[in-house]
């Protein structure tokens, strides 16, 4: 049996943040980009063990998995536990497209009183709790890259981006963190 | 017209400049003219001048919606060069550059043509291939354009950063020494004065609202905000508004009018000797004689006649400029504005007869309008006078979009594999 491959994570050893903003590369997670028409939502929700959100800017969690609404026929499903996402959707019996993007994306956890200010250094969205409550998510821009934002708490966000943009994302967050007030 | 010279200036200084004549006459429009040019920018006024000077046609009216040179002529970043790629482009832009070289003397009006050199920066292998293709084609066509090493580029333009640690290090540059800048307002006023002196009527604040046509479909004149004015021939030279005017004659054209923004810095002592352009980092810069850094970039993405654009275009432009010239980061932006560029799918102009008899169109110059002004005007005059294009402008037909014989200057610069 040939030796087993090990993982080399993006942002390994990345360090930054300020008293107002803590930055932490997220643990590796399983992810699928799920696309389907509305008529397949019920079957896919059952297969995944959570009810896929159908309203814009919303997410849903269930069984350690989180599903983010990205478009009328598009979700990003993240599972930090064991994966099995592809197998689950395949068994749903619904017509759909599921594509493993676990390694395409990586994520940065942004938390602290200055979290939304740091994000607003590059993101044009209104990140007040009123406009972007806990559980809200959106694909948007952060500086010169595309990201997916999920608010996980009043002062906590998960920023998903493609692997090759993660140095840029972390660098901009680190610089923006020093400019955020408590 | 009174000849301008240092002697005239001294003489007038003695009597506190009371004796200067108006640049142009602003007559009431006649009932009809032999030729009407729609659009009082550099191209329109120039065409009237060359019709009078080279084709002996002087019963002409140039009709301008607002004030002379108020469109793109007064809003561009005044860059002049002729090192384009395709023969059709080289023909017309080199014809224009040769006219630039003698324009002040021809018009007896100092348009301040300043051949300080236009340097296009190469940041990667694709840029190098593209520029060398231009350089080789230009050489065989008799147009000066030379390849510089990064060190030579730095010597020619000292503020340039050629360090290898830059995000997109410079691996060379293409320099056209005869390229440079000129004073845009002076081009409009110089042509207007010379045309007016030869009997051309210049009619401002007169918006064309319709094109009237005769029994066999030929043009017979224009409806305007100041009444109907007859014409045997009509030349449309309305830049960003070309689609609007051509549709008055039922002719559709392949244009999109986009805002093109530019900005100037506060005036500085001389620091920037030439013109520098970069496709990859996407910006271009020169310093005006008053000392302002004149900076321009790409168009806003959507079609608009608002002559304003988004702040993000300005910030992205300045990102690029300060990446190339880090010492300018503390300099301040004094003013930003926008023009309306008429862009064709292949980024080459249209100077052509149209399906409507005696209706000629000169448009689609996009971001290349200023540098083309004398050449375009000169050849458009030939087209209007003779009814068929001058050989140097033969390729710029409206029909090329039917046959597919495009002159794709845009593709030549597209990003690589």
């Amino acid at each position, binding site marked *: 049996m*040939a*030796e*087993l491959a090990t*993982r*080399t994570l993006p942002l390994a050893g990345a360090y930054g943040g300020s008293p107002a903003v803590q930055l932490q590369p997220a643990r590796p997670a399983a992810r699928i980009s799920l696309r389907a028409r509305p008529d397949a939502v019920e079957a896919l929700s059952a297969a995944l063990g959570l009810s896929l959100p159908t309203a814009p800017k919303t997410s849903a969690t269930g069984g350690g998995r989180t599903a983010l609404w990205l478009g009328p026929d598009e979700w990003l499903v993240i599972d930090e536990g064991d994966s099995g996402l592809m197998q689950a959707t395949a068994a749903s019996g619904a017509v759909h*497209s599921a*594509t*493993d*993007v676990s*390694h395409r994306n990586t994520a940065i956890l942004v938390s602290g009183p200055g979290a939304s200010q740091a994000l607003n*250094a590059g993101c*044009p969205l209104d990140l007040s709790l009123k406009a972007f409550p806990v559980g809200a998510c959106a694909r948007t821009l952060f500086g010169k890259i595309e990201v997916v934002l999920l608010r996980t708490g009043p002062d906590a966000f998960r920023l998903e981006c*493609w*692997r090759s943009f993660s140095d*840029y994302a972390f660098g*901009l967050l680190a610089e923006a963190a*020093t400019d955020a007030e408590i | 017209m009174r000849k*301008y010279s240092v002697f*005239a*200036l001294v003489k007038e*200084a003695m009597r*506190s400049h009371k004796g200067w004549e108006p640049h142009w*006459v602003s007559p009431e429009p006649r009932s009809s003219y032999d030729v009407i040019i729609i659009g009082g920018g550099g191209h329109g006024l120039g065409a009237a001048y060359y019709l009078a000077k080279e084709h002996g046609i002087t019963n002409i009216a140039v009709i301008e919606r607002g004030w002379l040179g108020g469109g793109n002529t007064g809003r561009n970043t005044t860059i002049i060069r002729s090192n384009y790629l395709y*023969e059709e482009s080289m*023909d017309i832009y080199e014809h224009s550059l040769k006219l630039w070289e*003698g324009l002040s*003397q021809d018009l007896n009006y*100092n348009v301040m*043509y300043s051949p*300080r050199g236009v340097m296009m920066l190469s940041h990667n292998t*694709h840029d190098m291939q593209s520029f*060398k*293709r231009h350089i080789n084609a230009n050489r065989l066509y008799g147009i000066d354009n030379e390849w510089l090493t990064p060190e030579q580029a730095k010597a020619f333009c000292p503020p340039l950063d050629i360090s290898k640690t830059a*995000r*997109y*290090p410079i691996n060379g540059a293409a320099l056209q020494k005869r390229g440079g800048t000129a*004073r845009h307002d002076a081009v409009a006023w110089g042509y207007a004065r010379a045309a007016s002196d030869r009997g051309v009527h210049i009619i*401002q604040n007169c918006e064309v609202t319709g094109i009237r046509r005769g029994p066999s479909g030929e043009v017979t004149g224009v409806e305007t905000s100041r009444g109907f004015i007859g014409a045997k021939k009509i030349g449309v030279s309305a830049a960003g508004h070309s689609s609007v005017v051509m549709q008055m004659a039922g002719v559709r054209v392949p244009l999109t009018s986009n805002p093109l923004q530019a900005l100037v810095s*506060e005036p*500085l*002592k001389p620091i920037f000797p030439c013109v520098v352009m970069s496709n990859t980092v996407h910006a271009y810069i020169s310093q005006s004689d*008053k*000392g302002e850094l004149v900076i321009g970039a790409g168009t806003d993405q959507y079609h608009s006649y608002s002559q304003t654009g988004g702040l993000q275009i*300005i*910030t992205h432009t*300045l990102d690029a400029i*300060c990446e190339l010239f880090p*010492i*300018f*980061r*503390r*300099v*301040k*932006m*004094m003013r930003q*504005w926008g023009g309306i560029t008429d862009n064709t799918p292949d980024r080459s102009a249209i100077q052509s007869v149209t399906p409507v008899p005696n209706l000629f169109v000169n448009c689609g110059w996009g971001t290349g309008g200023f540098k083309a002004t004398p050449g375009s005007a000169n050849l458009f005059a030939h087209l209007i006078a003779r009814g068929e294009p001058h050989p140097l402008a033969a390729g710029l037909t409206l029909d090329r979009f*039917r*046959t597919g014989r495009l002159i794709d200057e845009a*593709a030549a610069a597209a990003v690589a*594999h």
Partner: protein
Amino acid sequence: MTTHRIKGAGRLTPARTARFTFDGKIYTALEGDTVASALLANGVHLMGRSFKYHRPRGILTAGPEEPNALLDVSRDAARRQPNVRASVQEVFDGAIIRSQNRWPFLSFDIGGFNNLLSAFFPAGFYYKTFMWPREAWAKLYEPIIRRAAGLGVAPKEADPDHYANRFAHCDVLVAGGGAAGLTAALSAAQTGADVILVDERAEVGGALLFDTAVTIDGKPGYDWAQDVLRQLKAMPNVRVLTRTTVFGYYNHNFLGLVERVTDHLASPDAALPRERLWQVRARKVVLATGAIERHMVFANNDRPGILLASAARLYLNHYGVAVGSKVGVYTAHDSAYEAAIDLKRAGVDVVAIVDCRAKPGEAVVSAARGLGIEVLTGYSVIDTAGHLRISSITVARNGSSNNRKIPVDALLMSGGWTPSVHLFSQSRGKLKFDAATERFLPDVHVQDCVSVGACNGTDDLNTLLSDAAAAGGGALRLSGEVPFAWTGGMIGAAEGAGKDKVVKAFVDFQHDVTAKDIRLAVREGMHSIEHIKRFTTNGMASDQGKLSNMHGLAIAAEMLGKEIPKVGLTTFRAPYTPVTYGTLIAHSRGSLFDPARKTPLHAELVKAGAEFEDVGNWKRAWYFPKRGEDMHQAVNRECRTARTVAGVFDASTLGKIEVVGPDAAKFLNLMYTNAWDNLKPGKCRYGIMTREDGFVYDDGVVGRLSEDRFHVTTTTGGAPRVLHHMEDYLQTEFPDLKVWLTSTTEQWSVIAVQGPKAREIIAPLVEGLDLSNEAFPHMSVAECTVMGVPARLFRVSFTGELGFEVNVPADYGAAVWKAIWSRTEAMGGCLYGTETMHVLRAEKGYIIVGQDTDGTVTPDDAGYGWAVSKKKPDFVGIRGLKRPDLMREGRKQLVGLLTRDPAEVLEEGGQIVENPNQVKPMTMLGHVTSAYWSENLGRSIAIGLVANGRARMGETLYVPMKDKTIAVEVTDMVFFDKEGGRIHG
């Protein structure tokens, strides 16, 4: 040095001082002083030289509209800032300040000779001369003019400071923190709305800072303002931004603000940005931008010591500084009287108030006379004297010729107040001209914004307070008193500077534009205000016409015999005041200028000593030099080794799109020129994509993993635009197809192993797959396991050798790469980069879209006519391909080019001609698209686009270069292993 600080006046604390140098001399300022107030306190008025005539100029204003006192301010060599307004820059301890635009000294400037010769330099003189001889303009005249022009010196070093950006949203943005702004902000804040209040000064209050006689809510104006500020700062839904300018009002209530964070601090915290750019989307905007006092236009109105009346009041009432000891006043507006009254009460000798109006406001006149000040109504100042400082004014009763000289060391002037409608105009609001008061005022608000206070032409304090409260939307009700209701104001030339006069009555101080310049422009046929502005450059200086626009317009209208609104108004453009480039750039610098995209194998490539090149925003391994090899030697070794043993290459940047769904094959049939429904799962096919116009747009290998799942690859540069192109057609032209697209470019590390030993290298790492030719032939794809990891293995080759591409989930790429590379190295194989990849594929005649094609090349031109399906009823490009010019004879076609001299390597971009001796402009047949030295063939090879190329096999053509002409033979494009056996090895 006598101090002009008045005991007990102003609001600065005398204890805290700061020292700075101005042109080498050391001065002392109080903390909170601006450079202007500090210099005035030390009796210094001379601060600059004008642009054209280099006339000595003093501070004129106390705000951002300052045209004269532009200084060079630096902390150290790198932190040096030109063109800084002395009236805005606060003094910090240790500041090094220099005057500009003068040589050798401010007090003695050679440039001043221009003033003597000014008769020869009227507006627009440079259009009339400098035309002989032809080259002289660029070589002689222009350099001289450029050296004289310009004000400050550009910094010489890169800026070490950093800047920040903040997108923000609010319900109400209030521009201006004066009486109106504070009221609107408090009113809005009390409704619970999110409010941002912005003021360009260090302290709120606006006009209340100098107008000490005003009381609001029973308190002195300044105290009321600071009290409201405390209330606002205590509210969580309010953000107050001082030292911040709203510089731009863009579409849909989007506003650009610049906050000056550290420029006033002696030793700022290194973590702080120097300035912060705010990009605010406001639901509603309240413009409370006040008004700017105008100067008077009269002969020699520009000597140092001549200031705006309100400026003198601010220097006295806020900074405690008297601008002079023998002060004259020349006015057409009542407000100047209060300046005289304040100075008189502070013990300063106010020698005379000259009011050009026959009947000014009685209250202010009697108040002034009550204090013993001589008030001359119906008089005018018709001249001034004094070189580096004003020494006297000459006054005369209007219409009479006998005049009288009054010695002064300062002259305050007021032509009245111009409502600041800059931001309103930027919001594309429509202005109207109020003929009674000769003011342009907001008329139609186009965006969700409202103007309140002086910028709306509201003079009465209580109307202002109620309008502002209403604009805020809250229940706040305030009232206040003012001692005098101001009347008056004039625009245009004053007495003694009329139509027939040739005196220098300055309209635009910085650009030295006089009243007679504007009249000259009108005489020369310039009748539009835009022509007049551009011909004279009136209003084109760094203060952008804040003081000069209205005067210029009035003088032009008088010459034209037209109503002012008929002459028009020039456009107010962003920014309101100049904005630092660094601020607009904010974070986009250095490594954050543009993302540097690296593949998952990047670290390994660096360890292996790779040189990198930029491809789009990717960093790609270019070549792997060993022991002092240059690129040429490294590439030759890599090329040789790849074909004799094996080469390993990082192909991760290639675009990858997963096309999934029952209609996947149908969709690909529409998007690519070739057919896909007969491609069996486990097989691959090379696809060419065109747009509707029929020109090659992208290409790549497509692998079918199952009935409804395709793994589509695109060029590196093409990845985003191909996906966008596909989504465009899928969503709008073929919406009924059940298929979806997902970008997987970065899901996979892609390790290409090419060469005779390729199979031997990867075999031990691959489980669950028979790699033999029979089971896994060329152009196959299979899902398997590599080193225990789920992988996709492709049997594809871009080198013509036996080739595999190992696709493993990205994070595993480095480990798999190390394993493959150690086995390859042991067998004598090599790593290779993009340069070698280019050579090997060219040896096989494979094209590169974007290099061999440039958007004007059809599939047939490129020799890929076979890939265009003849059977399919429809695909994108099917009609475009059949257009006349794309079907005509003589199109440029890709062909091989072999130089007669095998050692000669052509230059990519070289032009190809039939007859090298033809005279220029030559007829060109095409150009060299790819050219390399081929180590494997021991000679140079090239590919080129040549008119009618395929019909010219064996012909000799020529590539004329600068110093030589190179003969080439037109050949087939495949140079190496023509029978193509190796790929099936």
